């Protein structure tokens, strides 16, 4: 399945969305943007809740621009799960299915598999009011997945969930969406969602796509400042590391980036690939190798230094590992560091925040 938006425009009077040109393949595109940038309107146009003034929305070669909502086979997970309060969990999941479909053996197996994948079997008889925020979003996801949608649209589905449950659900969501192989558009303004879920990113500001590309492309373009402060702030706040788990003992996981060994807290299966965020401010620089409780000490080379006001972003490299440490101008002066120097980057095992896990 491929979703294409060609010159799609919608005029709201004081605000104009578009013209938008986007292509989403069988992967997860995260749409990022500040409040009021037109993110929700964009997915409402795709869902058919709004109709564009101009342009074409094409799904798998078929124009759906003027199709009514119910014919588009779009799975829409709203910010508020909006489960029907007069139905229990199971009947909410079955809501979109016709009677014949509910009785078909194949469909029953399909429904059971989705319920198992989402780990919600124990919730089926419950009333909606008895569910937590995370459980509600899982049920709302099951409700659309049983319909085999052509495309999945998710509008900040984790924003109403407490942060502990959010981290867990984020990792689960990635694995569920990967299994489905359905083009997915995920709208957010959380930095973590990008690293946890995105295959590609589109950054929307004032109704226009300011940046778009694969996660790798966008992260590699970090030095290039864009016109949007919001985007720069989000993308430049953290280091995103991807590595392979080599060992896990007593909640301490050892992982490898090229030949560099690093540590994080958490339980992960050996050989699984993990994605982690390390805040720039959390990386300490030291000219000498110090004895410290921190588990991650890497000898790196300074490849660049970008100065803004009193802050300096120091770009570091060692083999396949690229890091950015954010230090104050006075700290840089005390250390007397320059581009080309070799230095130690130090951070505790509790600093890398695991955000993505792809099991073998």
């Amino acid at each position, binding site marked *: 399945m491929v979703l294409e938006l060609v010159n799609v425009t919608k005029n709201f009077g004081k605000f104009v969305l578009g013209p938008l040109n986007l292509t989403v393949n069988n992967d997860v595109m995260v749409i990022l943007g500040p409040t009021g940038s037109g993110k929700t309107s964009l997915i409402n146009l795709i*869902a*058919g*809740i709004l109709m564009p003034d101009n342009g074409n929305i094409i799904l798998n070669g078929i124009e759906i621009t003027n199709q*009514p*909502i*119910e*014919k588009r*086979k*779009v*799975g*829409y997970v*709203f910010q*508020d799960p*909006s489960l*029907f*309060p*007069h139905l229990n969990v199971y009947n909410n999941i079955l*809501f*979109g299915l016709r009677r014949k479909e509910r009785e078909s053996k194949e469909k029953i197996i399909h429904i059971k598999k989705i319920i198992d994948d989402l780990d919600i079997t124990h919730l089926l008889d419950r*009333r909606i*009011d*008895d569910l937590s925020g995370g459980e509600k979003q899982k049920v709302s996801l099951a*409700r*659309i997945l049983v*319909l085999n949608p052509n495309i999945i649209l998710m509008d900040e589905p984790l924003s109403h969930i407490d942060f502990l449950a959010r981290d867990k659900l984020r990792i689960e969501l990635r694995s569920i969406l990967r299994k489905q192989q359905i083009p997915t558009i995920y709208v957010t303004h959380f930095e973590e969602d990008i690293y946890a879920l995105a295959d590609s990113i589109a950054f929307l500001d004032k109704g226009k796509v300011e940046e778009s590309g694969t996660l790798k492309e966008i992260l590699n373009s970090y030095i290039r400042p864009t016109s949007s402060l919001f985007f720069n702030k989000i993308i430049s706040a953290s280091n995103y590391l991807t590595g392979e788990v080599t060992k896990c003992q007593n909640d301490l996981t050892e992982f490898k980036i090229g030949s560099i060994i690093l540590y994080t807290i958490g339980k992960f299966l050996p050989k699984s690939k993990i994605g982690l965020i390390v805040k720039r401010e959390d990386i300490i620089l030291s000219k000498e190798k110090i004895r410290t409780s921190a588990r991650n000490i890497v000898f790196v080379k300074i490849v660049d230094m970008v100065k803004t006001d009193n802050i300096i972003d120091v770009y570091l490299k060692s083999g396949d590992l690229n890091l950015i440490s954010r230090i104050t101008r006075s700290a840089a002066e005390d250390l007397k560091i320059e581009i080309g120097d070799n230095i130690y980057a130090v951070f505790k095992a509790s600093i890398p925040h695991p955000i993505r896990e792809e099991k073998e």
Partner: protein
Amino acid sequence: MVESLKRNEILDSVILSLTTATISTILVSIFGIPLAFVLARFQFKAKFLIRMIVILPLVLPPLASGTMLLGVFGPYSFLGKMIPIEFTQSVLGIVIAQTYVASPFLILPIQAAFESIPERYETVARTLGKKKWQVFFTVSLPLAKIGILIGLLMAWIRSIGELGATIMMAYNPHTVSIQIFEDSAIGGIRNSVAGIILVIIIALVALTIFVLIRRQRVLKFGW
């Protein structure tokens, strides 16, 4: 009082009122529930006018309503001359009067019930493949159930208590309200107590049924 209760005309009037009130409530609900939904969900030019027409039976004195109905359905009216059916002084006349007077008691609470349902439930249902009419029956109607029950009950009770418009449209056969009015006019308050007690019992039974339905729903769905 016991003697009064044994009078055939009292029991007959109660049975007639129960029957006509039920028919009137069904009639009002057939056009009133969809109308309430339209008023709650859609914006259109004639909306204000329709709202005024819906509220009119509440503000008009019942006798004035009856006079107006006579103007439409009376034997010398255009309709009365065109259609060879006796609208007045008949059960049909009672049903017309009750339907007219009871309609705002059904439409207004049901409109409020539909308005209280967040529209996003209906949008979600559409994204799940339901057509507009399916959304109405599978989402809007069940979610407005309590409001609908209240509307039905209020319209039914109002129909049973209806007097002014019915006197004008159909003094005969006697509904319980007309019977109480006549008994009181002829024999004073003592003569009408039996009818009043029966009406109070009917209201209590209706209210109890409503409370039981609501409690069962709260236990099942929590709201």
